[in-house]
């Protein structure tokens, strides 16, 4: 029987033992595959051990699907091998780019949403899904720049990618909140425009305020607890689409496992309140 994914946590090396022993109902863990694409060694052994106890999700940050180049073949092959090894419950990537001419720029970089870019991203997703032999979920990134040359809204763009490629969506509600603040749109309306059936996973995280006061920017820093307005948006989205596997992300200023588990339990309770989760 397929495990039911409730609320999960990003897996951190310092929490390895507690993660392994955690017996919370519905628990699962997510990792960036880029940290596990090596030939062998203890990292892969850790991942195997966690996978023996819990469902895992692979959340890629570097396939550069919004880039002008097709996904790197060697990267895809290594990812396919990792997928064959750990049989993840979920596989996801971002609507962003990060590689160019054989160099990696470690961030999720933006792109104008034009028809040409749409065709390219759809082709890159299709190629990825062909090699991985499974659909992937595409995450909405955080935005910090206004671009004049968007031909598509992000929600329509994502919806069109779903139609063209059969991909799923990963909705990062903190990213929606941060982007809505930075670019001046309505986060609630954004969530309402996403195709409910396509949403396979939800991310929740904390953010910070940019040190430059004049910039009035929120930064998707993953270094703080989820704030109440993001929890409210989460409840709002679940009310429309039903429960979905939900991840608490924390990548900086990482607290004790117990503190993250508490935050994760808050998401689990909200999921259970939807009535279907165990």
């Amino acid at each position, binding site marked *: 029987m397929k495990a039911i994914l409730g609320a999960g946590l990003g897996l951190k090396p310092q929490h390895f033992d507690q993660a392994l022993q955690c017996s919370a109902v519905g628990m699962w863990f997510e990792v960036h595959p880029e940290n596990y694409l090596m030939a062998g060694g203890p990292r892969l052994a850790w991942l195997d051990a966690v996978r023996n106890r819990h469902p895992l999700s692979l959340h890629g940050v570097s396939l550069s699907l919004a880039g002008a180049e097709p996904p790197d073949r060697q990267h895809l092959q290594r990812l396919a091998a990792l997928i064959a090894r750990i049989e993840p419950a979920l596989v996801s990537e971002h609507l962003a780019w990060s590689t160019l001419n054989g160099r990696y720029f470690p961030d999720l*970089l933006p792109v104008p949403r034009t028809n040409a870019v749409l065709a390219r991203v759809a082709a890159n997703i299709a190629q990825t899904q062909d090699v991985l032999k499974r659909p992937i979920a595409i995450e909405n990134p955080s935005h910090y720049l206004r671009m004049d040359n968007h031909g598509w809204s992000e929600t329509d763009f994502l919806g069109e990618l779903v139609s063209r490629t059969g991909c799923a969506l990963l909705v990062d509600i903190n990213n929606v909140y941060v982007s809505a603040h930075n670019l001046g749109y309505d986060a609630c309306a954004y969530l309402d425009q996403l195709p409910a059936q396509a949403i396979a996973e939800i991310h929740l995280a904390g953010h910070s305020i940019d040190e430059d006061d004049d910039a009035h920017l929120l930064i998707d820093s993953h270094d703080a607890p989820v704030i109440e307005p993001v929890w409210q948006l989460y409840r709002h989205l679940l009310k429309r689409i039903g429960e979905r596997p939900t991840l608490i992300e924390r990548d900086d200023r990482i607290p004790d496992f117990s503190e993250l588990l508490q935050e994760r339990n808050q998401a689990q309770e909200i999921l259970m309140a939807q009535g279907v989760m165990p």
Partner: protein
Amino acid sequence: MSTQADTFQHDFIRAIYDHEDESATLAQLTQQPGFKVYRNTVIKASIDALAANFPSIVQLVGTDWFHSAALIHVRAEPPESVCLIEYGRRFVDFLRDFPPAAELTYLADIAHLDRCWTECHIAADERALEPAQLAALAPDLLLQSVLRIRAGVRWHWCATQPAYTIWDANRRQDELTQELNWQGEGALLSRIDGAVVWQPASLGMCVFLDVCAQDADLQTATGKALEAESTLDVAALLGTLLAAQVFAA
């Protein structure tokens, strides 16, 4: 063929790395305060990756010095691999030729040993040769054997400086307690049961391993090792290497 998206990406990256670039096509973006978020993230993540991959260098030179040096390298050589644990292949050569490090003549060797540690850490899993397997061979067969070195093993000889002692202390984030003996030193690193362990290596051991790595037989490797280090105890050397799980089964 260059497409619009191509041009956009090239301009974007140029603006990330070059603050002075006032490319007209991107001015609308680079003049917004949000552009620096991308610039900061790309540069910081690259520097953080170098710091994680070269902890002994950070320990040795301090965070500020490391940050300044890494910034120059990061701007010249962005990561090639999306697996950031692999980043820094050229950082060793960069440090060797970095003018402010001219007096720290051992820095490149220390960085090389950090790199060796990472290569051991991420290498393919392989079973080690059991001493009994070697002991079972008749002496003449033993000398004709070609021993393959496991993927998770690295060694390095530094001819003129006590690189091993300096690296060992800094890798363990320890103070150098002993008086440095300013002569050549070598290191042997091997991943055993998931953990990278290390020990000093003599010139003879390093030559022996160099020759083994070229698929030469034990007789050849032993001969070359003795040429380099006439007092080498070959039986003890084999025992040390077997205990360190240097050879593949």
